[in-house]
């Protein structure tokens, strides 16, 4: 996940993963890994939307496609690290868990969380994708050309 060109690549990756986790999953993994630390809210969880943009003809000028629901929050651990969450859907407790994880990933506990939370989550999401991709692959057409009736 490390990328020499983008110093934020690591955090981008874990925040993206937390945003796409199924409902309740981050909280379950987090509580199994550790007792949650104390924190104060800088922004309590709020539900809103993001306007999703796309490009005309896939690569042309941008246009507004429609919105999606998003829940966000920001908190500060007692040790001072600030955690943010922007996750899909209307899920306040999931946003809280995601922001706690984002903050904890900036502490000494990061390696443990990576092993016990981020990696299992990543594997689960990849497995779900792979299952769908395999079903799609089974519907791939193998054309074979019939001999044309010439002569």
């Amino acid at each position, binding site marked *: 996940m490390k990328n020499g060109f983008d110093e934020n690549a690591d955090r981008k990756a874990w925040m993206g993963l937390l945003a796409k986790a199924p409902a309740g999953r981050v909280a379950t993994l987090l509580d199994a890994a550790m007792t949650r630390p104390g924190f104060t809210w800088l922004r309590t969880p709020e539900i809103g939307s993001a306007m999703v943009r796309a490009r005309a003809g896939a*690569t042309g*000028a941008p*246009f507004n496609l429609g919105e999606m629901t998003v829940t966000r929050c920001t908190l500060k651990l007692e040790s001072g690290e600030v955690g943010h969450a922007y996750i899909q859907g209307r899920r306040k407790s999931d946003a809280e868990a995601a922001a706690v994880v984002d903050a904890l990933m900036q502490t000494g506990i990061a390696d443990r969380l990576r092993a016990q939370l981020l990696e299992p989550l990543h594997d689960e999401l990849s497995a779900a994708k792979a299952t769908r991709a395999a079903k799609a692959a089974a519907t791939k057409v193998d054309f074979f050309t019939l001999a044309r009736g010439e002569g």
Partner: protein
Amino acid sequence: MYVAVKGGERAIENAHAWLAEERRGDTEIAELSVAQIREQLSLAVHRVSAEGSLFDPDLAALAIKQARGDLIEAIFLIRAYRTTLPRFGFSKPVDTGVMTCDRRISASFKDLPGGQVLGPTFDYSHRLLDFKLAAEGEVPEAPSQEAEAGDVPHVTDFLNREGLIEEPPHGDTPPPDLTREPLEMPADRALRLQALTRADEGFALGLAYSTQRGYARNHAFVGELRIGSVPVEMEIPELGFAIEIGEVVLTECETVNQFKGSKAEPPQFTRGYGLVFGQSERKAISMALVDRALRWEELGEDNIGAPAQDAEFVLYHADNIQATGFLEHIKLPHYVDFQSELELVRKLRREAGTDQVQEAAE
């Protein structure tokens, strides 16, 4: 003119109570859960997401339940809810080139790299009612096969290499947003695409069909149709960089259209574009055909006066919530209006002597 009429409160309350009971239906039959609607009526959920202009399958399923399956009413509920949401920002334009495709077909290129992937389609079903579905039962798991890794390129990229197809003009101008500013003419392509993606599916289908039958014929082939999910990335000001905030399911249709050339452009293929929330290929193809028809002016084509070429006609009538709002308002009390009309007709008849004629006839 409207006059406040009081006295209907109890009738309205009772009507709502009965509506709730009718919605539930026969209590001997198990109640539908929102999750059941989301999972088992997913294409209705997708239509509500697309035309409600808000991607949230759980909310769309709830709206369908509340609306008793009336999809336009459900879309209305979603649009109303959407207006209550604070907007946190806008995403970077999604890249459909990295779509995880459930389906991906081309009607123009048989041997496209990545292959023709049929996905969960109705296309080759016999359209015969399946009475097995009437009895409950487990569905066997669909077969799977090892998938190739990597992104699936767009078909039109291949035509592009030969220069045989127009390149869409690039740019990063912030697009207009009809949810923030009222729709104004002339509407540029970005605004037209936004209006079309949330347009009523039936209206878009009818217009698209009219172009195929000769009203602004533009000889469309489906260059590519793909359905799948794409990540959505948004710039987060407090972070100073963009992160993925989720994934949306999209249907994308690119048409390749014959074009003989004009004063402005050499002979080449042109493109129409459809992109819709959810799995909705009828809508995506319709959108692409109408998008292409509306582009007559920038391509220097003749306006033959076809409905699908008339941006004002298309865009002002495509929204089913606007349309149904205005249409259905005429069932609301217009007692005074009608009273004055009645007076007018009586007066005109008196003046024309119609009353006497009738009396004489009797």
